[in-house]
């Protein structure tokens, strides 16, 4: 079975955001780049499927500048077989990314196309379902469990106040939520093997944009409030300020 995992390189969640000189993007200086945490669950699940079936190919696909190859190499070290790098130095919005990914994936014959639920940089949560729609694949988003029986996958996803159980026939696209699995670390052997695995580099011309970024700014700083007191003795004062000052009780 051929599986494709679409991944994104993002700024580490420890990053203190600084705004770039253009006033529209993140200042990349000093940023540590990592595999998007939600994509780790996608990579892990694809590898587990391949291991369970005892055969198949896992292809990692990503778009971005030259730096993206370090993250693709990391996914190869986890166990993916090969990678496709859609190379562009322009930032892609979700529609542009989805169109580029759909075009690259269309002829790969994938039975499952995996995505993280969302990237922790733009928090859009769009590329998975958009790409699936463009490929006319059924898509279940934010899955928290996964069982495969033949060509039928049974998955669960959290919704407000409940959990849906959905059955989907392959080929399909799935986006992964935290809790699906415990992603592995690359082993030393995996890291060595990854050096020999191919990364197919393809220049990418982005299509027309769906969104125009007007600005990126820091949120208004929240000023520190005050300490109402120490220990249980301060409980009545806390309740009083919540009722009378903040009026939230």
């Amino acid at each position, binding site marked *: 079975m051929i599986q494709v995992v679409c991944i994104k390189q993002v700024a580490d969640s420890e990053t203190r955001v600084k705004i770039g000189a253009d006033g529209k993007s993140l200042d990349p200086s000093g940023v540590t780049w990592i595999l998007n945490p939600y994509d780790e669950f996608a990579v892990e699940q694809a590898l587990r499927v391949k291991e369970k079936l005892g055969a198949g190919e896992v292809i990692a696909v990503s778009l971005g500048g030259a730096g993206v190859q370090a993250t693709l190499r990391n996914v190869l070290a986890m166990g993916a077989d090969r990678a496709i790098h859609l190379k562009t130095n322009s930032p892609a919005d979700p529609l542009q990314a989805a169109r580029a990914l759909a075009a690259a994936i269309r002829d790969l014959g994938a039975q499952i196309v995996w995505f993280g639920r969302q990237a922790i940089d733009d928090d859009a949560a769009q590329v998975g379902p958009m790409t699936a729609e463009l490929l006319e694949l059924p898509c279940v988003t934010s899955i928290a469990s996964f069982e495969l029986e033949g060509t039928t996958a049974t998955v669960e996803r959290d919704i407000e106040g409940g959990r849906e159980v959905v059955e989907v026939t392959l080929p399909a696209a799935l986006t992964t939520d935290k809790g699906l699995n415990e992603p592995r670390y690359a082993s030393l052997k995996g890291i060595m093997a990854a050096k020999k695995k191919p990364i197919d580099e393809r220049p990418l011309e982005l299509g027309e944009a769906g969104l125009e970024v007007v600005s990126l*700014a820091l949120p208004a700083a929240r000023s520190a409030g005050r300490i109402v007191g*120490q220990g249980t003795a*301060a409980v009545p004062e806390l309740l009083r300020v*919540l009722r009378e000052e903040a009026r939230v009780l």
Partner: protein
Amino acid sequence: MSILVFVEQRGGRIRSVSNEALGEASRLKGALGGEVVAILPCASDPGAGSLGAAGADKVRLAAHPGLGSYDPAGYTRAVVAAAVELEPALILFPASSLGKDLAPRVAARLGVGLASDCTALAVEGGRLVATRPVYAGKAIQKVAFPKTPAIASLRPKVFAPVSNAGAAGAVAIAAVSDPAPNRMRLLRTAAASGSKVDLTESEVIVSGGRGLKGPENFKLIEELAGALGATVGASRAVVDAGWRPHSEQVGQTGKTVSPKLYVAVGISGAIQHLAGMSSSRCIVAINKDPDAPIFKVADYGLVGDLFEVVPALTEAVKKLNAQHA
């Protein structure tokens, strides 16, 4: 030009996030012109007449036995059909779990951009600009839409609903074709074991962190949450430790929340956590370490041992509730 608003129903009941989207649509109507049209996929009318008071000028019922529960393909077709016919300037969705799943599909079908999880919409210099938190709230992005329709999903609990806006005009029944053989089926929906209200839609949240020392001590958090009518949240540390389910995690790689009141108990305030809750209206921190970063964003801090303070606070809130009962 109209504004098309996707209205979400579950089990035949219209969800309140839909009224928030209708409220924003009726406020934008002045600047964008046109009328507010609600599109409501359902099995049978769940009470579309009430949408007039919430801001809809017209309602299109896409009623079909197959649309009672969420069917991504059928819902996408229904919204896209309405968009193609009405050519709206703007389509709004609630950024609920359903809306977040559906909106990108509609945007992809229409070949236009989508601004997800917006916290403000405004017409600036003659064009629509959407404001949306990124990096879990560490930065705020503004985006414009090069093509029409613009599509935006709206963060729950941010946009105020309107009431008594008027009566909805015609409730039109949209023709819905029978679905194509579906390769995806909802087998069942299980109720969550914990709270019925999602964190993102909660007015009050009580979150616990590593300071609780063990999963069994979360009953202190649950009791305080019960007294306050709040939803239970958790820090990443305790979710990663397996004490609480991921659905309760607040912050980057969890949920971004903006409740009226956020109570952080035994949470030191890692940058990822602060990003996800700093837009709460009022923040209370209870922590024994007076230098914990959480106090830098809290409106009110209480320094003390949570194992003493939280039960005392729970009792005090219960007394208060009894007085007002």
